[in-house]
Protein backbone atom coordinates (compact mmCIF):
# COMPACT_ATOMS: atom_id res chain seq x y z
CA UNK A 1 0.00 0.00 0.00
CA UNK A 2 1.43 3.29 -1.03
CA UNK A 3 1.28 6.18 1.45
CA UNK A 4 -0.24 9.41 0.27
CA UNK A 5 2.00 11.46 2.53
CA UNK A 6 5.74 11.63 2.73
CA UNK A 7 8.11 13.42 5.06
CA UNK A 8 11.79 14.31 4.70
CA UNK A 9 14.35 16.29 6.64
CA UNK A 10 17.01 17.88 4.45
CA UNK A 11 20.30 19.66 5.01
CA UNK A 12 21.15 22.48 2.66
CA UNK A 13 23.83 25.01 1.89
CA UNK A 14 21.20 27.57 0.99
CA UNK A 15 21.27 30.59 3.27
CA UNK A 16 18.68 31.13 5.94
CA UNK A 17 16.16 33.27 4.12
CA UNK A 18 13.91 34.34 6.97
CA UNK A 19 13.25 38.06 6.70
CA UNK A 20 13.62 39.78 10.06
CA UNK A 21 12.80 43.25 11.20
CA UNK A 22 14.04 44.29 14.63
CA UNK A 23 14.82 40.65 15.34
CA UNK A 24 11.24 39.68 14.45
CA UNK A 25 10.27 37.36 11.62
CA UNK A 26 8.47 39.20 8.85
CA UNK A 27 8.70 36.44 6.21
CA UNK A 28 9.27 32.85 7.17
CA UNK A 29 12.15 30.95 5.66
CA UNK A 30 12.11 28.25 3.01
CA UNK A 31 11.55 30.26 -0.14
CA UNK A 32 15.00 29.59 -1.57
CA UNK A 33 14.65 25.86 -0.93
CA UNK A 34 11.17 25.90 -2.48
CA UNK A 35 12.48 27.66 -5.57
CA UNK A 36 15.34 25.18 -5.85
CA UNK A 37 12.96 22.21 -5.58
CA UNK A 38 10.62 23.79 -8.14
CA UNK A 39 13.59 24.14 -10.48
CA UNK A 40 14.54 20.48 -10.02
CA UNK A 41 11.00 19.34 -10.73
CA UNK A 42 10.62 21.56 -13.78
CA UNK A 43 13.81 20.06 -15.12
CA UNK A 44 12.04 16.70 -14.85
CA UNK A 45 9.19 18.08 -16.92
CA UNK A 46 6.66 18.74 -14.17
CA UNK A 47 4.21 21.62 -14.13
CA UNK A 48 5.15 23.39 -10.90
CA UNK A 49 3.56 26.49 -9.41
CA UNK A 50 5.52 29.37 -7.97
CA UNK A 51 6.29 29.12 -4.24
CA UNK A 52 3.47 30.51 -2.12
CA UNK A 53 4.01 31.88 1.38
CA UNK A 54 1.89 30.21 4.05
CA UNK A 55 3.04 32.19 7.10
CA UNK A 56 4.35 29.94 9.84
CA UNK A 57 3.61 26.90 7.72
CA UNK A 58 6.40 27.91 5.36
CA UNK A 59 6.27 27.78 1.55
CA UNK A 60 3.98 25.69 -0.62
CA UNK A 61 4.41 24.26 -4.11
CA UNK A 62 1.76 22.57 -6.22
CA UNK A 63 2.63 20.13 -8.97
CA UNK A 64 0.07 19.11 -11.59
CA UNK A 65 0.34 15.78 -13.36
CA UNK A 66 -2.38 14.96 -15.87
CA UNK A 67 -5.12 16.60 -13.81
CA UNK A 68 -3.78 15.26 -10.53
CA UNK A 69 -2.14 17.45 -7.94
CA UNK A 70 0.78 16.90 -5.60
CA UNK A 71 1.33 19.32 -2.76
CA UNK A 72 4.71 20.12 -1.21
CA UNK A 73 5.44 22.27 1.83
CA UNK A 74 8.87 23.47 2.95
CA UNK A 75 9.37 24.69 6.51
CA UNK A 76 12.75 26.37 6.43
CA UNK A 77 15.36 26.53 9.09
CA UNK A 78 18.96 27.60 9.28
CA UNK A 79 20.89 25.01 7.28
CA UNK A 80 18.03 22.51 7.10
CA UNK A 81 14.35 22.27 6.29
CA UNK A 82 11.39 19.95 6.51
CA UNK A 83 9.78 18.75 3.30
CA UNK A 84 6.25 17.41 3.37
CA UNK A 85 4.67 15.92 0.28
CA UNK A 86 1.12 14.74 -0.25
CA UNK A 87 -0.84 13.39 -3.20
CA UNK A 88 -4.09 15.33 -3.17
CA UNK A 89 -6.79 12.79 -3.77
CA UNK A 90 -10.49 13.50 -3.55
CA UNK A 91 -12.21 12.23 -0.43
CA UNK A 92 -14.80 10.39 -2.49
CA UNK A 93 -12.20 8.30 -4.33
CA UNK A 94 -12.25 4.68 -3.24
CA UNK A 95 -8.87 3.29 -2.20
CA UNK A 96 -9.13 0.34 -4.52
CA UNK A 97 -9.56 2.74 -7.41
CA UNK A 98 -6.45 4.68 -6.52
CA UNK A 99 -3.60 4.53 -8.97
CA UNK A 100 -0.65 6.14 -7.26
CA UNK A 101 2.01 5.11 -9.76
CA UNK A 102 2.35 8.75 -10.78
CA UNK A 103 3.03 9.65 -7.15
CA UNK A 104 5.67 6.93 -6.77
CA UNK A 105 7.38 8.12 -9.94
CA UNK A 106 7.24 11.69 -8.68
CA UNK A 107 8.80 10.84 -5.29
CA UNK A 108 11.56 8.88 -6.99
CA UNK A 109 12.44 11.75 -9.31
CA UNK A 110 12.23 14.29 -6.50
CA UNK A 111 14.55 12.22 -4.32
CA UNK A 112 17.05 11.75 -7.15
CA UNK A 113 16.96 15.45 -7.96
CA UNK A 114 17.61 16.45 -4.35
CA UNK A 115 20.44 13.99 -3.98
CA UNK A 116 22.18 15.12 -7.13
CA UNK A 117 21.78 18.82 -6.52
CA UNK A 118 24.81 20.35 -4.76
CA UNK A 119 22.54 22.78 -2.90
CA UNK A 120 21.23 19.88 -0.82
CA UNK A 121 23.64 17.96 1.41
CA UNK A 122 21.44 15.30 2.94
CA UNK A 123 17.93 13.96 2.44
CA UNK A 124 16.36 11.65 5.02
CA UNK A 125 12.91 10.16 4.57
CA UNK A 126 10.84 9.09 7.56
CA UNK A 127 7.70 7.07 8.03
CA UNK A 128 4.80 8.85 9.71
CA UNK A 129 2.86 7.46 12.63
CA UNK A 130 -0.87 7.72 13.19
CA UNK A 131 -0.46 11.30 14.39
CA UNK A 132 1.60 12.19 11.33
CA UNK A 133 4.77 12.50 13.38
CA UNK A 134 8.01 11.15 11.89
CA UNK A 135 8.98 7.84 13.34
CA UNK A 136 11.59 5.11 12.93
CA UNK A 137 14.98 5.28 11.26
CA UNK A 138 15.65 7.55 8.32
CA UNK A 139 15.74 6.06 4.84
CA UNK A 140 17.36 7.11 1.58
CA UNK A 141 14.40 6.01 -0.50
CA UNK A 142 10.98 7.57 0.14
CA UNK A 143 9.23 4.48 -1.16
CA UNK A 144 10.97 2.26 1.37
CA UNK A 145 9.24 3.97 4.29
CA UNK A 146 5.82 3.85 2.70
Amino acid at each position, binding site marked *: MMMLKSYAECATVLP*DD*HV*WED*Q*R*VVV*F*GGRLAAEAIAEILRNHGYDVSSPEC*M*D*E*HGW*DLNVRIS*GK*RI*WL*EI*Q*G*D*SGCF*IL*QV*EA*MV*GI*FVRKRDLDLSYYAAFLTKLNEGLRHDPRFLKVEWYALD*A*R*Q*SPTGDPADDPLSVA
Partner: protein
Amino acid sequence: MGIGLKDRLRAGLGSMEEWSRDRQADLAHGVAELEARSHQFYRQAIRDGQDTLAQTTSELREFAKQQSISQTRAARPSQLPAAHSGTSQSPHLQMKDSRPTGDLLESSRRAIGDIQRKAQTALQRAGDSGPVRILAGDAAYTAGDAAGLVTGTVHMGHELLDGAVLAGRVFDPTDAFRHPVGEAGWDRLFGGIGAMASSAKEAVTDPGAAIQRLSEAGGRLRRETDPSATPTAPTLSGEVSRNFGLGRREGEVTMEVLPYLAGAGELKATAELGAMSKFSRIAKYTKQGFSPVEAEYLAQPYKGMGHHSLLPRRKGLPDWLGGGPVPQWISDSAFNVLKPPGISRGDMYELHYKVDPHFRRAGLSEGGNWVGSRLGLKEYGPLQQRWHGTPNATRRAIAGGGIAGAIPFGDEE
Protein backbone atom coordinates in the same frame (compact mmCIF):
# COMPACT_ATOMS: atom_id res chain seq x y z
CA MET B 1 -37.04 75.20 16.33
CA GLY B 2 -34.60 72.35 16.13
CA ILE B 3 -31.92 74.32 17.90
CA GLY B 4 -34.33 75.15 20.73
CA LEU B 5 -35.17 71.49 21.22
CA LYS B 6 -31.52 70.55 21.19
CA ASP B 7 -30.76 73.24 23.74
CA ARG B 8 -33.52 72.00 25.97
CA LEU B 9 -32.33 68.42 25.62
CA ARG B 10 -28.78 69.43 26.36
CA ALA B 11 -29.95 71.45 29.38
CA GLY B 12 -32.01 68.52 30.61
CA LEU B 13 -29.15 66.08 30.27
CA GLY B 14 -26.85 68.59 31.90
CA SER B 15 -29.09 68.87 34.94
CA MET B 16 -29.32 65.06 35.19
CA GLU B 17 -25.58 64.84 35.11
CA GLU B 18 -25.36 67.60 37.70
CA TRP B 19 -27.82 65.76 39.92
CA SER B 20 -25.79 62.57 39.62
CA ARG B 21 -22.59 64.46 40.38
CA ASP B 22 -24.21 66.02 43.47
CA ARG B 23 -25.25 62.61 44.77
CA GLN B 24 -21.74 61.29 44.30
CA ALA B 25 -20.35 64.35 46.06
CA ASP B 26 -22.80 63.81 48.93
CA LEU B 27 -21.67 60.23 49.24
CA ALA B 28 -18.01 61.17 49.16
CA HIS B 29 -18.65 63.92 51.69
CA GLY B 30 -20.41 61.49 54.00
CA VAL B 31 -17.60 58.98 53.80
CA ALA B 32 -14.99 61.67 54.45
CA GLU B 33 -16.97 62.94 57.41
CA LEU B 34 -17.22 59.44 58.80
CA GLU B 35 -13.49 58.97 58.45
CA ALA B 36 -12.83 62.28 60.20
CA ARG B 37 -15.14 61.37 63.03
CA SER B 38 -13.48 57.98 63.38
CA HIS B 39 -10.07 59.55 63.76
CA GLN B 40 -11.42 62.14 66.16
CA PHE B 41 -12.89 59.47 68.42
CA TYR B 42 -9.74 57.42 68.22
CA ARG B 43 -7.49 60.34 69.16
CA GLN B 44 -9.80 61.18 72.05
CA ALA B 45 -9.75 57.58 73.25
CA ILE B 46 -5.97 57.53 73.23
CA ARG B 47 -5.85 60.79 75.17
CA ASP B 48 -8.36 59.40 77.68
CA GLY B 49 -6.22 56.32 78.14
CA GLN B 50 -8.86 53.91 76.89
CA ASP B 51 -7.71 50.42 76.04
CA THR B 52 -8.44 50.30 72.32
CA LEU B 53 -6.87 48.95 69.19
CA ALA B 54 -7.94 49.61 65.64
CA GLN B 55 -5.67 48.17 63.00
CA THR B 56 -7.92 48.59 60.03
CA THR B 57 -10.27 51.24 58.71
CA SER B 58 -13.20 48.97 59.40
CA GLU B 59 -12.14 48.54 63.01
CA LEU B 60 -11.63 52.26 63.31
CA ARG B 61 -15.11 52.96 62.00
CA GLU B 62 -16.61 50.33 64.26
CA PHE B 63 -14.85 51.90 67.22
CA ALA B 64 -16.16 55.34 66.23
CA LYS B 65 -19.67 53.96 65.88
CA GLN B 66 -19.58 52.44 69.36
CA GLN B 67 -18.26 55.69 70.78
CA SER B 68 -20.98 57.64 69.02
CA ILE B 69 -23.69 55.35 70.42
CA SER B 70 -22.41 55.56 73.95
CA GLN B 71 -22.10 59.34 73.78
CA THR B 72 -25.56 59.65 72.28
CA ARG B 73 -26.98 57.65 75.14
CA ALA B 74 -25.08 59.55 77.79
CA ALA B 75 -25.32 63.10 76.59
CA ARG B 76 -28.27 65.45 76.57
CA PRO B 77 -29.20 66.57 73.07
CA SER B 78 -28.22 70.17 73.72
CA GLN B 79 -24.77 69.05 74.91
CA LEU B 80 -23.94 67.09 71.83
CA PRO B 81 -21.25 68.58 69.68
CA ALA B 82 -22.34 69.44 66.13
CA ALA B 83 -20.37 66.56 64.64
CA HIS B 84 -22.31 64.10 66.81
CA SER B 85 -25.64 64.91 65.30
CA GLY B 86 -25.38 62.12 62.73
CA THR B 87 -23.34 61.26 59.70
CA SER B 88 -26.30 61.44 57.39
CA GLN B 89 -27.24 64.96 58.32
CA SER B 90 -27.45 66.93 55.15
CA PRO B 91 -26.12 70.43 54.58
CA HIS B 92 -29.74 71.63 54.38
CA LEU B 93 -30.46 70.54 57.95
CA GLN B 94 -27.27 72.19 59.19
CA MET B 95 -28.38 75.40 57.52
CA LYS B 96 -31.73 75.16 59.31
CA ASP B 97 -29.89 74.78 62.60
CA SER B 98 -27.99 78.01 62.10
CA ARG B 99 -30.99 80.16 61.26
CA PRO B 100 -32.33 82.60 63.88
CA THR B 101 -35.56 81.11 65.28
CA GLY B 102 -38.52 81.97 67.50
CA ASP B 103 -40.01 79.72 70.19
CA LEU B 104 -42.13 77.72 67.79
CA LEU B 105 -39.28 77.27 65.38
CA GLU B 106 -36.95 76.40 68.21
CA SER B 107 -39.24 73.72 69.59
CA SER B 108 -39.79 72.35 66.09
CA ARG B 109 -36.06 72.28 65.55
CA ARG B 110 -35.53 70.38 68.76
CA ALA B 111 -38.27 67.95 67.85
CA ILE B 112 -36.70 67.36 64.47
CA GLY B 113 -33.31 67.01 66.11
CA ASP B 114 -34.67 64.43 68.53
CA ILE B 115 -36.24 62.45 65.72
CA GLN B 116 -33.01 62.63 63.75
CA ARG B 117 -30.94 61.40 66.66
CA LYS B 118 -33.33 58.58 67.45
CA ALA B 119 -33.40 57.56 63.81
CA GLN B 120 -29.63 57.71 63.67
CA THR B 121 -29.29 55.60 66.80
CA ALA B 122 -31.82 53.11 65.47
CA LEU B 123 -29.94 52.90 62.18
CA GLN B 124 -26.65 52.37 63.95
CA ARG B 125 -28.17 49.63 66.09
CA ALA B 126 -29.78 48.11 63.05
CA GLY B 127 -26.38 48.19 61.39
CA ASP B 128 -25.19 45.65 63.94
CA SER B 129 -27.66 43.18 62.45
CA GLY B 130 -26.34 41.28 59.45
CA PRO B 131 -29.74 40.73 57.75
CA VAL B 132 -30.56 44.42 58.04
CA ARG B 133 -27.23 45.32 56.46
CA ILE B 134 -27.95 42.92 53.63
CA LEU B 135 -31.42 44.35 53.05
CA ALA B 136 -30.11 47.89 53.18
CA GLY B 137 -27.29 46.87 50.84
CA ASP B 138 -29.76 45.43 48.34
CA ALA B 139 -31.74 48.65 48.39
CA ALA B 140 -28.56 50.67 47.94
CA TYR B 141 -27.50 48.41 45.04
CA THR B 142 -30.79 49.05 43.28
CA ALA B 143 -30.48 52.78 43.89
CA GLY B 144 -26.90 52.72 42.63
CA ASP B 145 -27.94 50.76 39.57
CA ALA B 146 -30.49 53.43 38.73
CA ALA B 147 -27.90 56.15 39.26
CA GLY B 148 -25.44 54.30 37.00
CA LEU B 149 -28.04 53.97 34.28
CA VAL B 150 -28.63 57.69 34.54
CA THR B 151 -24.95 58.59 34.21
CA GLY B 152 -24.51 56.05 31.42
CA THR B 153 -27.54 57.45 29.63
CA VAL B 154 -26.18 60.95 30.04
CA HIS B 155 -22.96 59.90 28.31
CA MET B 156 -24.89 58.23 25.53
CA GLY B 157 -27.19 61.22 25.28
CA HIS B 158 -24.26 63.52 24.73
CA GLU B 159 -23.06 61.27 21.92
CA LEU B 160 -26.54 61.30 20.37
CA LEU B 161 -26.66 65.05 20.73
CA ASP B 162 -23.31 65.33 19.02
CA GLY B 163 -24.84 63.27 16.24
CA ALA B 164 -27.84 65.60 16.07
CA VAL B 165 -25.57 68.62 15.90
CA LEU B 166 -23.57 66.90 13.19
CA ALA B 167 -26.75 66.13 11.27
CA GLY B 168 -27.63 69.80 11.42
CA ARG B 169 -24.23 70.72 10.08
CA VAL B 170 -24.47 68.23 7.25
CA PHE B 171 -27.57 69.98 5.93
CA ASP B 172 -26.10 73.40 6.44
CA PRO B 173 -24.88 74.58 3.00
CA THR B 174 -22.37 76.96 4.60
CA ASP B 175 -20.83 74.34 6.87
CA ALA B 176 -18.23 73.20 4.35
CA PHE B 177 -17.13 76.79 3.96
CA ARG B 178 -16.97 77.51 7.67
CA HIS B 179 -14.87 74.48 8.63
CA PRO B 180 -11.48 73.35 7.38
CA VAL B 181 -11.12 70.23 5.26
CA GLY B 182 -11.54 67.13 7.40
CA GLU B 183 -13.67 68.89 10.01
CA ALA B 184 -16.73 69.81 7.95
CA GLY B 185 -19.94 67.94 8.71
CA TRP B 186 -19.78 65.82 5.56
CA ASP B 187 -16.16 64.87 6.28
CA ARG B 188 -17.08 63.70 9.76
CA LEU B 189 -20.12 61.88 8.46
CA PHE B 190 -18.11 60.02 5.84
CA GLY B 191 -15.45 59.25 8.43
CA GLY B 192 -18.11 57.88 10.74
CA ILE B 193 -19.66 55.79 7.99
CA GLY B 194 -16.22 54.43 7.20
CA ALA B 195 -15.63 53.48 10.82
CA MET B 196 -19.05 51.86 11.11
CA ALA B 197 -18.53 49.98 7.88
CA SER B 198 -15.17 48.83 9.15
CA SER B 199 -16.73 47.57 12.39
CA ALA B 200 -19.57 45.94 10.53
CA LYS B 201 -17.13 44.28 8.15
CA GLU B 202 -15.15 43.00 11.11
CA ALA B 203 -18.30 41.63 12.69
CA VAL B 204 -19.24 39.86 9.45
CA THR B 205 -15.82 38.53 8.58
CA ASP B 206 -14.89 37.66 12.15
CA PRO B 207 -18.09 37.00 14.10
CA GLY B 208 -16.14 34.98 16.64
CA ALA B 209 -14.14 38.07 17.59
CA ALA B 210 -17.25 40.21 17.96
CA ILE B 211 -18.97 37.61 20.11
CA GLN B 212 -15.79 37.14 22.10
CA ARG B 213 -15.64 40.86 22.85
CA LEU B 214 -19.23 40.85 23.94
CA SER B 215 -18.55 37.85 26.12
CA GLU B 216 -15.54 39.58 27.66
CA ALA B 217 -17.58 42.70 28.34
CA GLY B 218 -20.14 40.51 30.07
CA GLY B 219 -17.40 38.92 32.14
CA ARG B 220 -16.11 42.34 33.13
CA LEU B 221 -19.60 43.36 34.11
CA ARG B 222 -19.88 40.34 36.38
CA ARG B 223 -16.47 40.84 37.97
CA GLU B 224 -16.93 44.53 38.65
CA THR B 225 -20.49 44.44 39.90
CA ASP B 226 -20.89 41.19 41.78
CA PRO B 227 -21.52 42.04 45.48
CA SER B 228 -20.28 38.60 46.52
CA ALA B 229 -16.89 39.34 44.94
CA THR B 230 -15.98 41.70 47.81
CA PRO B 231 -16.48 41.20 51.55
CA THR B 232 -19.50 42.61 53.30
CA ALA B 233 -18.81 45.87 55.12
CA PRO B 234 -18.92 45.65 58.92
CA THR B 235 -21.22 48.65 59.27
CA LEU B 236 -24.53 49.63 57.80
CA SER B 237 -23.21 52.80 56.21
CA GLY B 238 -20.25 50.89 54.81
CA GLU B 239 -22.51 48.24 53.36
CA VAL B 240 -24.83 50.84 51.86
CA SER B 241 -21.87 52.68 50.38
CA ARG B 242 -20.35 49.47 48.96
CA ASN B 243 -23.56 48.31 47.35
CA PHE B 244 -24.40 51.73 46.00
CA GLY B 245 -21.01 51.83 44.27
CA LEU B 246 -21.40 48.33 42.85
CA GLY B 247 -24.92 49.05 41.63
CA ARG B 248 -23.87 52.30 40.06
CA ARG B 249 -21.02 50.56 38.25
CA GLU B 250 -23.42 47.93 36.97
CA GLY B 251 -25.67 50.63 35.59
CA GLU B 252 -22.77 52.33 33.85
CA VAL B 253 -21.30 49.12 32.45
CA THR B 254 -24.73 48.06 31.26
CA MET B 255 -24.84 51.20 29.19
CA GLU B 256 -21.34 50.40 27.90
CA VAL B 257 -22.41 46.89 26.91
CA LEU B 258 -25.64 48.03 25.32
CA PRO B 259 -24.04 49.04 22.01
CA TYR B 260 -22.66 45.50 21.65
CA LEU B 261 -26.08 44.00 22.14
CA ALA B 262 -27.68 46.52 19.83
CA GLY B 263 -25.06 45.90 17.18
CA ALA B 264 -24.22 49.59 17.05
CA GLY B 265 -21.20 51.52 18.15
CA GLU B 266 -17.57 50.69 17.94
CA LEU B 267 -16.46 47.17 18.76
CA LYS B 268 -13.98 47.90 21.46
CA ALA B 269 -10.78 45.93 21.45
CA THR B 270 -9.66 44.34 24.67
CA ALA B 271 -6.05 45.29 24.33
CA GLU B 272 -5.75 46.06 28.03
CA LEU B 273 -6.54 42.45 28.89
CA GLY B 274 -3.87 41.29 26.49
CA ALA B 275 -1.39 43.67 28.08
CA MET B 276 -2.20 42.33 31.51
CA SER B 277 -1.35 38.80 30.58
CA LYS B 278 1.63 39.58 28.38
CA PHE B 279 4.13 39.42 31.22
CA SER B 280 2.90 36.04 32.37
CA ARG B 281 3.22 34.83 28.79
CA ILE B 282 6.79 36.07 28.54
CA ALA B 283 7.55 34.22 31.77
CA LYS B 284 6.00 31.06 30.33
CA TYR B 285 8.07 31.18 27.14
CA THR B 286 11.23 32.02 29.03
CA LYS B 287 10.59 28.98 31.18
CA GLN B 288 10.27 26.93 27.99
CA GLY B 289 13.85 27.89 27.20
CA PHE B 290 13.43 30.77 24.80
CA SER B 291 15.65 33.82 25.00
CA PRO B 292 14.09 37.04 26.35
CA VAL B 293 13.86 38.43 22.80
CA GLU B 294 12.19 35.26 21.54
CA ALA B 295 9.86 35.13 24.54
CA GLU B 296 8.80 38.70 23.94
CA TYR B 297 8.22 37.89 20.28
CA LEU B 298 6.13 34.84 21.18
CA ALA B 299 4.10 36.92 23.64
CA GLN B 300 3.04 39.33 20.92
CA PRO B 301 -0.48 39.02 19.48
CA TYR B 302 -0.70 36.44 16.73
CA LYS B 303 -1.41 37.99 13.34
CA GLY B 304 -0.86 35.09 10.99
CA MET B 305 -3.36 33.35 8.76
CA GLY B 306 -4.45 30.90 11.45
CA HIS B 307 -5.21 27.21 11.12
CA HIS B 308 -7.41 26.33 8.17
CA SER B 309 -9.43 23.69 9.83
CA LEU B 310 -12.18 22.09 7.75
CA LEU B 311 -10.74 23.01 4.38
CA PRO B 312 -6.94 23.10 4.65
CA ARG B 313 -5.15 25.47 2.32
CA ARG B 314 -3.52 22.61 0.52
CA LYS B 315 -6.89 21.14 -0.39
CA GLY B 316 -8.45 22.12 -3.68
CA LEU B 317 -11.89 21.88 -5.17
CA PRO B 318 -12.89 18.47 -6.53
CA ASP B 319 -12.86 18.03 -10.26
CA TRP B 320 -16.66 18.04 -10.48
CA LEU B 321 -16.50 21.57 -9.06
CA GLY B 322 -13.90 22.61 -11.59
CA GLY B 323 -10.78 21.83 -9.58
CA GLY B 324 -8.46 24.61 -8.56
CA PRO B 325 -8.07 26.19 -5.17
CA VAL B 326 -10.94 26.72 -2.77
CA PRO B 327 -12.21 30.30 -3.17
CA GLN B 328 -10.57 32.56 -0.64
CA TRP B 329 -13.88 33.83 0.78
CA ILE B 330 -14.64 30.26 1.79
CA SER B 331 -11.14 29.22 2.77
CA ASP B 332 -10.47 32.30 4.90
CA SER B 333 -13.93 32.60 6.42
CA ALA B 334 -14.40 32.53 10.18
CA PHE B 335 -16.09 29.17 9.78
CA ASN B 336 -12.89 27.63 8.46
CA VAL B 337 -10.07 29.46 10.21
CA LEU B 338 -9.08 28.77 13.80
CA LYS B 339 -7.57 32.00 15.04
CA PRO B 340 -8.67 32.79 18.59
CA PRO B 341 -8.99 36.52 19.12
CA GLY B 342 -6.25 37.97 21.27
CA ILE B 343 -4.14 34.81 21.30
CA SER B 344 -0.39 35.25 21.49
CA ARG B 345 1.96 33.98 18.81
CA GLY B 346 3.42 31.37 21.14
CA ASP B 347 0.04 30.08 22.27
CA MET B 348 -1.18 29.96 18.68
CA TYR B 349 1.87 27.95 17.66
CA GLU B 350 1.16 25.48 20.46
CA LEU B 351 -2.48 25.20 19.49
CA HIS B 352 -1.57 24.96 15.82
CA TYR B 353 0.96 22.24 16.54
CA LYS B 354 -1.57 20.19 18.47
CA VAL B 355 -4.37 20.40 15.93
CA ASP B 356 -2.41 20.38 12.67
CA PRO B 357 0.10 17.59 12.03
CA HIS B 358 1.56 19.59 9.16
CA PHE B 359 2.68 22.44 11.38
CA ARG B 360 5.84 21.40 13.14
CA ARG B 361 8.16 24.37 13.53
CA ALA B 362 8.53 28.07 12.85
CA GLY B 363 11.38 30.54 12.75
CA LEU B 364 11.82 33.01 15.58
CA SER B 365 14.69 35.40 16.01
CA GLU B 366 17.84 34.93 13.96
CA GLY B 367 19.11 31.43 14.56
CA GLY B 368 16.21 30.51 16.81
CA ASN B 369 13.30 28.24 16.09
CA TRP B 370 10.05 27.18 17.62
CA VAL B 371 9.85 23.39 17.38
CA GLY B 372 6.79 21.75 18.91
CA SER B 373 8.39 18.36 19.51
CA ARG B 374 11.29 19.95 21.41
CA LEU B 375 8.86 21.58 23.84
CA GLY B 376 7.42 18.23 24.72
CA LEU B 377 4.05 19.11 23.24
CA LYS B 378 1.81 16.22 22.30
CA GLU B 379 -0.25 16.41 19.15
CA TYR B 380 -3.92 15.69 19.51
CA GLY B 381 -5.33 12.51 18.05
CA PRO B 382 -7.61 12.73 15.00
CA LEU B 383 -10.81 13.24 16.99
CA GLN B 384 -9.25 15.79 19.33
CA GLN B 385 -7.77 17.58 16.35
CA ARG B 386 -11.26 17.89 14.91
CA TRP B 387 -12.76 19.01 18.22
CA HIS B 388 -10.10 21.52 19.24
CA GLY B 389 -9.36 22.62 15.71
CA THR B 390 -12.89 23.55 14.71
CA PRO B 391 -13.50 27.31 14.82
CA ASN B 392 -16.13 28.48 17.27
CA ALA B 393 -18.14 30.09 14.49
CA THR B 394 -18.64 26.64 13.00
CA ARG B 395 -19.41 25.10 16.36
CA ARG B 396 -21.98 27.79 17.01
CA ALA B 397 -23.49 27.22 13.60
CA ILE B 398 -23.65 23.49 14.26
CA ALA B 399 -25.09 24.10 17.71
CA GLY B 400 -27.83 26.15 16.11
CA GLY B 401 -26.53 29.60 16.99
CA GLY B 402 -28.50 31.74 19.39
CA ILE B 403 -27.96 31.12 23.06
CA ALA B 404 -26.21 27.82 22.50
CA GLY B 405 -23.79 29.55 20.16
CA ALA B 406 -22.96 32.21 22.72
CA ILE B 407 -21.60 29.66 25.16
CA PRO B 408 -17.83 29.95 25.09
CA PHE B 409 -15.95 26.70 24.97
CA GLY B 410 -12.86 25.13 23.49
CA ASP B 411 -9.42 26.49 22.73
CA GLU B 412 -10.68 29.65 21.14
CA GLU B 413 -11.83 31.10 24.48
